[in-house]
């Protein structure tokens, strides 16, 4: 479904993504893990068209999508959520969801004046859909709240809700569970599985919670220092020496550094 070929993303002399190659199979829920600063979010940003790569290619169903804008990728069914939740602060939660689908009648000035009826009908349908999504995410009571005022965890749910407003092909979730309590995390996990089974969404999920990864994801890809370190089933990954070292090694390095400065 998505193939990343030898992708590099450099910030000045710093190689955030340093020759990553990976594949996300159609219909899978692929996990992407790695220590902080491994380049996971940067990889998402490049795939989703927010940052241009320094070199390398991204293919979707065999077609080169490198350098397309997020807007063009949206139309191809590629969606993503942000690690730090984004929202339209001046709008209500329901309105936030209703903004998502593309090519709404109300988007042109012509229709705004001359096709009021069609717009109203479409908006009613969208509002209904938004309410269903909110119900599904157990945040119906927030529908009319300003999105800037809801909590961080609730914003995370809103991020996920956005991907449910359209028929996506592949969704990239960046730490969708961060700051969300355990019960809700399970709800999110169930939602992901359901979307995967019922609507055929392919997922690529960044998450630090290994239980969550272990329960949902197959395969799991491990990144460290901008490279793909290992790939395989969750159980297999957790026993991998290199992976353990990548996590612990960095921790130890940091500890010695902190000790030296103290």
């Amino acid at each position, binding site marked *: 479904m998505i193939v990343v070929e030898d992708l590099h993303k450099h910030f000045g002399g710093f190689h955030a993504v340093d020759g990553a190659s990976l594949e996300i199979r159609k219909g899978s829920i692929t996990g992407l893990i790695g220590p902080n600063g491994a380049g996971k979010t940067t990889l998402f940003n490049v795939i989703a068209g927010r940052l241009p790569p320094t070199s390398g290619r991204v293919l979707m169903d065999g077609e080169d999508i490198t350098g397309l804008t997020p*807007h063009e990728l949206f139309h191809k069914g590629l969606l993503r959520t942000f690690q730090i939740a984004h929202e339209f602060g001046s709008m209500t939660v329901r309105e936030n969801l209703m903004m998502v689908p593309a090519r709404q009648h109300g*988007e042109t000035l012509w229709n705004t004046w001359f096709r009021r009826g069609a717009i109203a009908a479409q908006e009613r349908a969208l509002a209904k859909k938004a309410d269903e999504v909110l119900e599904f995410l157990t945040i119906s009571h927030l529908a009319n709240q300003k999105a800037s005022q809801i909590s961080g965890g609730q914003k995370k749910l809103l991020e996920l809700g956005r991907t449910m407003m359209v028929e996506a092909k592949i969704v990239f979730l960046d730490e969708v569970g961060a700051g969300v309590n355990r019960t809700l995390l399970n709800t999110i996990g169930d939602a992901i599985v359901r979307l995967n089974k019922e609507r055929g969404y392919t997922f690529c999920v960044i998450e630090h919670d290994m239980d969550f990864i272990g329960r949902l994801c197959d395969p799991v890809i491990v990144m460290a220092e901008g490279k793909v370190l290992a790939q395989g089933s969750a159980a297999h990954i957790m026993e991998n020496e290199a992976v353990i070292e990548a996590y612990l090694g960095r921790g130890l390095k940091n500890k010695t550094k902190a000790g030296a400065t103290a």
Partner: protein
Amino acid sequence: MVDFLNAIVALLNYVIVPATSYGAQLALGALGVTLIYGILRFSNFAHGDTMAFGTAITILVTWLFQSWGIGFGPLPTALLALPFGIAVTALLLLGTDRMVYRFYRRQKAAPVILVIVSMGVMFIMNGLVRFVIGVQEQNFADGARFVITATQFRNLTGLDEGLAVRTSTVITVVTAVIVVAALFWFLNKTRSGKSMRAFSDNEDLALLSGINPERVVMITWLLVAALATTAGVLYGLDKSFKPFTYYQLLLPIFASAVVGGLGNPVGAILGGFVVAFSEVTFTYAWKKVLTYLLPASLAPDSLVQLLSTDYKFAVSFAILVVVLLFKPTGLLKGKSV
């Protein structure tokens, strides 16, 4: 008591009415600046000249109508010509966007680069306006000059002071109210307007929704053309049209937008009135009003004018600095990119 009424009338006549009218004009100008800042994320230095261009075209069409003998009764013919001015300005702005700004948008140019680009556009529009209509002052207001003259008012009320209400003042205020109401309806109630707000709230996210960024940009320029031309024509009807004056208006207009909170439409309106009232209050000679109010022994000898009118732009600048010192994002919260 009569003195008190006279003082009130003098205050209305020399301060409140002119400042309201000027404030409405600044507010419309500042709305354009703030929309561009909110959506396209740069301060558009060409805005004063956009206003001048729209007004120049409107004046040309007005002259054409006049030569055909078309008038608008007691109202100025320019109001009939206004839609044409807006349409031509819209074409100019869309053309500029296509030829200039779009290139930099694709490059994801930093806001400061866009500001400098807009200065280049400013110089070109500057020349264009002078080419189209010349550098001289033009008076294009026709129709009835006054709704009520000072003499009529005096005869009517028997007071010493007169209150003159000019047609242009009434037109300014009424037009501004209609334009602002329409704009807010558009931004809050229509899907196109919501797309614009979404873009202004969070561009990253807007791009990840089905919102077509190029369409949002296009609609923004159309609204800016309407706002700038209307502001320019109202200002010209009230005072007169001179390209250089419009270029100078850039300072009070930016002051209004920034004082209110850049990117915030309500703030732009508030800012317009704050700047206008301060400017008029500081440059008005208060002698007359004070003479009515104070006992004869305390009556002032001097003009009691805080600043000469030559310094009126300094007032905008001072307000700008003071507000930014205490509230860096403006009176109402704007963006601070």
